[in-house]
């Protein structure tokens, strides 16, 4: 514990160096803008701005990109509360009661509660990360291919199970992502797979063109400028402070959201989205006044906003300790570190203590910056929303092209981004969530390699996944989740996920 505190102190000396603090601030500011602007989520934002970090060192790059990530979680709440438009997917639940509060003249209080909840969730999450990640990294050194395989399989199944829309749709998207992730040279045998004699496809399809295409361009294609909504509720600064009653109503949801968000964040999948949906469901379930949900319940804002920020922090645990990306966003962060010659995984804490501890400490600083940024400057961020969408989206398309091209200086990547934009548009039409596709793409190389290595190790015996304690535990959890999902699927029984989806649909359409 003492060494952790000493290391954290060293991290603060790195994070508070003027240049690093400046990049943390820049990341938080850009992240807030990314969260505020509809149509450009954290994944597209980070991917587009990845080339900007090429001139920085590894510590500054990860500090800035992570700032964009958790900054967007803060910013997403602003449009949800003031316009009823989720700036990004994890803010969907905040729309319901946040906008209802705004309509009742409590927009300032809703923004304040969302900001404080986000800060608590983020900061407590970093505290736990500080304590948990280093020892977990020590345990992770003993992870072999079977454990990695079991963990990634659990991640995919958990994502499918938690999807409130459809198990089959999620699994199909994951399969599509896995297949895309297998394009290029097979690392173990050197065979070219599905590259159609294009040298650029030899290294496979990158995460950035796929993510920017699906989430950036795809969103623009689905949003004609005539459909952009401009009904903005403007909060007054003097109304920002919630009343004592509102603080009381927010306290327990913030506490529950912190714990729930962090735990879900550790598990692979679109954690920040799932955690906000689950938190809303739990708050409504435990509330003494469930009928107030949808009409401006404070808990409906405090819980989900806290949970999505805690989950964003929790997602860094497997990233830093195991080197496993639990979401497309953390995968892009791994890519950013690899560009700077830093390998993420159990050895990171020992080999690059400046990067590890500087990054952890910067998250404390960044969360404080976001609290300061988001409350007094909320009117400024709202001003950005007044830019006509017709002028905004051509700019976003330009940044999509730059962001994708600059990573590898490859025009093929830009074509892939364009194709993925069309795919993203079609997926939205047919009610498919593209996030599992990107996750499949991200984990495909690790999953394939660890599965094949496991089988080689065991001479083709599948029981290797059930003969080692950690992989056995992970596989049992996977089987349990599959059994629960199959039970609801085959019997067409509406379990808690279906009921939650119905409630969400009803309330978001209200």
């Amino acid at each position: 514990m003492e060494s952790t505190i000493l290391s954290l102190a060293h991290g603060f000396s790195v994070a508070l160096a003027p240049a690093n603090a400046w990049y943390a601030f820049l990341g938080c500011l850009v992240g807030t803008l990314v969260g505020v602007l509809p149509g450009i989520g954290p994944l597209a934002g980070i991917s587009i701005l990845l080339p900007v970090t090429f001139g920085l060192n590894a510590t500054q790059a990860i500090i800035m990109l992570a700032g964009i990530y958790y900054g967007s979680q803060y910013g997403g709440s602003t449009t949800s509360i003031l316009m009823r438009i989720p700036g990004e997917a994890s803010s969907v639940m905040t729309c319901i009661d946040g906008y209802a509060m705004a309509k009742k003249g409590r927009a300032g209080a809703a923004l304040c509660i969302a900001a404080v909840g986000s800060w608590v969730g983020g900061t407590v999450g970093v505290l736990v990360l500080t304590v948990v990640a280093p020892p977990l990294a020590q345990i992770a050194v003993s992870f072999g291919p079977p454990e990695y395989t079991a963990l990634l399989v659990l991640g995919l199944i958990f994502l499918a199970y938690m999807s409130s829309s459809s198990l089959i749709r999620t699994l199909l998207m994951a399969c599509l992502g896995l297949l895309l992730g297998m394009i290029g040279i097979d690392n173990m045998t050197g065979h070219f797979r599905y590259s159609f004699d294009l040298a650029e496809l030899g290294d496979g399809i990158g995460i950035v063109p796929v993510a920017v295409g699906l989430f950036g361009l795809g969103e623009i294609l689905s949003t004609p400028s005539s459909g952009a909504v401009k009904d903005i509720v403007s909060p007054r600064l003097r109304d920002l402070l919630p009343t004592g009653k509102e603080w009381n109503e927010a306290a327990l949801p913030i506490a529950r959201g912190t714990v729930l968000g962090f735990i879900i964040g550790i598990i692979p999948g679109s954690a920040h989205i799932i955690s906000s949906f689950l938190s809303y469901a739990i708050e409504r379930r435990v509330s003494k006044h469930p009928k107030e949900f949808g009409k401006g319940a404070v808990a409906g804002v405090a819980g989900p906003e806290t949970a999505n920020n805690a989950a964003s922090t929790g997602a860094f645990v497997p990233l830093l300790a195991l080197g496993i990306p639990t979401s497309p966003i953390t995968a892009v962060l791994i890519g950013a570190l690899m560009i700077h010659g830093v390998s993420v995984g159990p050895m990171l804490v020992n080999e690059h203590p400046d990067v590890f501890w500087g990054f952890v400490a910067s998250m404390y600083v960044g969360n404080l910056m976001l609290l300061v940024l988001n409350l007094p400057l909320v009117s400024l961020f709202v001003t950005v929303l007044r830019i006509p969408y017709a002028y905004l989206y051509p700019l976003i398309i330009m940044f999509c092209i730059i962001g994708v091209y600059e990573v590898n200086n490859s025009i093929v990547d830009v074509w892939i981004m364009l194709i993925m934009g069309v795919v993203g548009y079609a997926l939205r039409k047919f009610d498919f969530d593209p996030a599992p596709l990107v996750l499949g793409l991200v984990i495909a190389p690790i999953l394939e390699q660890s599965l094949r290595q496991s089988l080689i190790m065991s001479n083709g015996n599948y029981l290797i996944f059930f003969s080692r304690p950690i992989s056995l535990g992970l596989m049992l959890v996977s089987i349990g989740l599959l059994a629960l999902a199959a039970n609801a699927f085959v019997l067409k029984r509406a379990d808690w996920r279906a009921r939650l989806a119905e409630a969400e649909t009803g309330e978001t359409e209200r």
Partner: protein
Amino acid sequence: MPNARKTQSTPSAACRDDVSYHRSLAWAGLELSVNLEGCLMTLRADHVTGAFFIGFGVLVLALSGDLPTGNLSMPGSGFMPKIVAVLTIFFGVVLAVRAGESKIFATLSWNDAKHAGLVVGITAAAVALFEWLGFLATNALLILTLLVVIERRPLLPAAVYSIGVVAITYVLFVYILKTPLQAGPLGF
């Protein structure tokens, strides 16, 4: 029109009428609440997507023909893709079989398709020109075309805006962030 089925003698004709009627509503961007019960065969969204994924899985298997599958103790490069392709086909079949829960295909709203098609076309042209014309010229043209052709903005303000934002972005990336951008025939 929703009562047309009552006056039609054959269900298939009623279906055809209802579907074309609802398709026209969908193009107009109107909210739909339809009941096409009684139709002999109603094509639903998941029939189409299920068929697509089955076809995609079959295509992957066909393309994997020359990849060695290996065996369990030494899996080859075709091992994992073939497993995932078979899973894709399986899930595609399940999706198509349970398509009754999905929307009727003809009622899907495509009123944003024209906007999407134009954006894709203009962006594709810009991508094709990007390495020849460079960052400045291509993106200024891209933004100008999007504003004038799709958004019907006046030419002069659109030109000022497009040149302005592209120039600012160029300065930001090249001089402040020290990130070189694709040069054009004139070297910038």
